């Protein structure tokens, strides 16, 4: 059945070359854990992407119940976690995944660093990777405020104070992040917008570039 559907579409749109282009590529021996078990370190980038996908999915589902408003944010999180079936699991995926994605990204960065994979001609991909790193930190920072509990509130308070210590621009950055003079209603909606629209859009664009470059340039050779 599935085969029939696939063939029907393929005859009309010739989609096989498209996914072949994405999925079929050489996996050199030195990055294949089946040949050298230590090559598992080359999996960290893929794992980071895998967890990112889970973050996007679980985040989409969480917004079905969450409201970015100081009166209702905490109540809606409490409701979705304790009253909705599997709420504790879906929120758990997003909560633990957020930490895990940073860990995986850090391990991936270490691997790239210690194998020297950032060297010419792949410097640009290292830079894009660093940008992804900062966008991820931004996603973590903005997402942390959203449950609007004590921990979230004071962590954001501290984070914004740190941002405010930037010479000359600090005050402007603080006002921009807070959306006003205090961490409050406007900060919450702002962080929500950044967390679910702006930063993910930037992240996807950067990931596109990251993957395009690695496919174009190939995986760096063995040590």
């Amino acid at each position: 059945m599935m085969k029939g559907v696939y063939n029907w579409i393929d005859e009309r749109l010739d989609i096989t070359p498209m996914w072949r282009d994405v999925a079929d590529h050489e996996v050199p021996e030195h990055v294949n854990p089946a040949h050298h078990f230590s090559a598992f370190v080359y999996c960290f980038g893929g794992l980071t992407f895998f967890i990112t996908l889970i973050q996007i999915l679980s985040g989409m589902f969480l917004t079905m119940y969450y409201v970015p408003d100081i009166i209702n944010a905490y109540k809606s999180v409490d409701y979705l976690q304790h009253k909705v079936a599997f709420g504790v699991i879906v929120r758990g995926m997003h909560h633990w995944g957020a930490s895990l994605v940073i860990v995986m990204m850090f391990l991936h960065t270490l691997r790239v660093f210690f194998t020297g994979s950032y060297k010419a001609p792949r410097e640009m991909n290292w830079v894009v990777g660093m940008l992804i790193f900062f966008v991820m930190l931004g996603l973590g920072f903005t997402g942390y405020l959203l449950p609007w509990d004590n921990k979230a509130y004071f962590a954001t308070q501290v984070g914004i104070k740190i941002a405010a210590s930037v010479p000359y621009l600090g005050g402007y950055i603080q006002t921009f992040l807070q959306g006003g003079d205090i961490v409050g209603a406007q900060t919450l909606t702002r962080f929500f917008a950044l967390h679910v629209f702006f930063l993910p859009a930037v992240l996807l664009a950067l990931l596109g570039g990251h993957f395009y470059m690695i496919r174009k340039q190939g995986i760096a050779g063995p040590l």
Partner: protein
Amino acid sequence: MSENTSHSHSERKPGAKREMSRRQFLAYTLGGTTGFLAAGVIVPMVRFAVDPVLQPKSASDWVKVVEESKITAEPKSFKFQVHQVDGWYESDPELEAWIAKDSSGKIFALNPTCKHLGCTVNWNNNPSYKDQYFCPCHGAHYTKEGKNLAVAPAPLDEYDVKIENGFVYLGELHANSIVK
């Protein structure tokens, strides 16, 4: 993939055991494992999303509205509050019922939400439709029992009524059972 499979099938000697190719075995096991893991991620999220559909419908409680002695043959409007739990938001919205006695003295209560497009109807508020419910939006009008006479496609909804210790209690709202 299928070429390979059919190839090996065609080479099979008559009477030989039907064997799965190595490639097919791998495709099944890897596909099965991937499917299982993906389901582990997807199933909780889908169950989470469809939770409102699977929630049992909560039956509404009886609300004490007014003394039985206040009810006359002429419909009168009474306001009453119901407790409403909407996810994390709880409120006590005020509802309205027009309560009257029918010719046999039985008490019934109608909801004044017009069955045309949901405006609020009123008793005897239009001189051209004396002793009728009239809707100001598109001129729908109803009899005292809620029967739709024009515009509206259905009669006014009716509340369950219970009389206890001289008080009228209203319950669930449902389609009008007095008139067809």
